[in-house]
């Protein structure tokens, strides 16, 4: 099985003492990897390090075999992402926003922008300025932007932000369909364990800047626990271990 993403011993310390420590994990082709943890656990920091938005103090990241620090363009060529909040140029339309992103990819057909807008349900509003969009519409645009380049690896940070129940189901179905039909690999950071539990085949649990557990969902949940119960138990174990240390 091909390893699309390798995160090796990544450490980042912020001036406030927080950050992430020695985070290592791999994401294989075809995985839907759920990156789970409470708010402030360090999920977004790890995602930003993967995408080169933050430089780690130590450690390496390789995407499609290319080191992000040395060969950024090659590493990012087949990556799509929605990170932190779905920001866009508010003075432009959704279509124009996507047009800017599309220019980076030489072999992208012109119809691709309409395809992804259709896919996320924004086609009727594509020529409206983003400044008039609701939070949910912006989130859908962020998702369209992440999927625009037909990426092999998609990183999503809290993709359900601002979406209603129908929107959340749409996102889940889109992820499952792309994974099944096109073999797209996903790394999804979220604190919504129930949502992730429905689609992820692997998970990594972040707590207080540490990756405390990774594994296949089927194997980890053999005891009949739900994902939420399992994650909470893992976090409690980690807290107990720290108290005794």
């Amino acid at each position, binding site marked *: 099985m091909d390893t699309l993403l390798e995160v090796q011993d990544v450490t980042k310390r912020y001036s406030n003492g927080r950050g992430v420590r020695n985070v290592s994990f791999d994401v294989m082709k075809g995985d839907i990897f759920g990156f789970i943890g409470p708010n402030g656990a360090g999920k977004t920091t790890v995602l*930003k390090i993967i*995408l*080169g*938005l*933050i*430089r780690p103090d130590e450690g390496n990241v390789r995407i499609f075999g290319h080191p992000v620090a040395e060969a*950024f*363009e*090659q590493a*990012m*060529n087949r*990556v799509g*992402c929605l*990170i*932190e*909040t779905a*920001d*866009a*140029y*508010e*003075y*432009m339309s959704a279509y*124009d926003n996507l047009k*800017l*992103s599309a*220019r*980076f*990819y*030489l072999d992208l057909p012109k119809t691709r922008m309409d395809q992804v807008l259709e896919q996320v349900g924004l086609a009727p509003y594509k020529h409206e300025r983003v400044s008039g969009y609701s939070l949910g519409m912006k989130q859908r645009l962020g998702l369209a*932007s992440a999927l625009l380049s037909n990426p092999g690896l998609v990183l999503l940070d809290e993709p359900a932000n601002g979406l209603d129940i129908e929107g959340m189901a749409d996102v889940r179905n889109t992820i499952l369909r792309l994974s099944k039909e096109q073999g797209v690999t996903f790394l999804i950071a979220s604190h919504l364990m129930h949502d992730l539990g429905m689609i992820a085949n692997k998970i990594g649990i972040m707590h207080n800047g540490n990756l405390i557990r990774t594994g296949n969902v089927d194997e980890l949940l053999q005891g009949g626990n739900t994902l939420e119960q399992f994650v909470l138990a893992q976090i409690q174990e980690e807290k107990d271990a720290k108290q005794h240390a």
Partner: protein
Amino acid sequence: MHSLKANTINEIEKIWHRRKTKVFLLLTLLIPVISTLLLSLLKNKTSIVWGLGGDLPMLMLNLFTFFLLPMMLSVTAVDSFSGEAAARTMKLVLVRPITRAKAFAAKVLALMVYAAIYLAMLWIVSSVSGWAIAGEGLTGGFADSVKAYPAAFLPMAAIGLLSVFIAQCFRNGSGALTTIVFVYAAAKLLPLIWPQVSAWSVFSYSDWHVLWTGSGASAGKLFSSFFFLLAYIIMAYTAGLLLFERKQW
């Protein structure tokens, strides 16, 4: 190089979509026309002889390079850097397949393209309105403008790049713009107290194009001024790039 080209086009398009860009372009069109009309009126009323047709391009260049053009370039630089940082849109570019060095270069190139467009438009409009409205032929002043306008690009580029550097020291646009205006005003006023300052301030070279008019300055003076401005451009670009490369988003 594809990513550099793609992002340069993107940056040009983003600047074009901002309302203030269109307002400034409109000012660049209107000010020479209105000035010509007013000066023609003054000429008819007072019989003062203006070499209006040929002198207007130089008159407009002096006016624009003293304040309007540096301000517009600074506003554009602030929008492109601290403005995008505040709107959290910078990462939209940085997560695409483009290195930070190229992303920075594209932003600077777009700024320079607009500086060239503003100057070209000003030259065309002031030349045409001087000729069409004032009804005067092409004089020596017009010939000077052919040399002066391209020359004026260099100090504008230096001021633009200095604004890019300052803009990156701030997380919001208003703080950056206030600082740039303060620095610009101080740099223009300080030589009145300490004349020696003007020799080292890039802002004192905003009227560098004047050296290219008439019989012109000596080759040595032009040569040294050219390298002084070039040095400022290289230093401001390098410092700006260093800041851009180190930023965490």
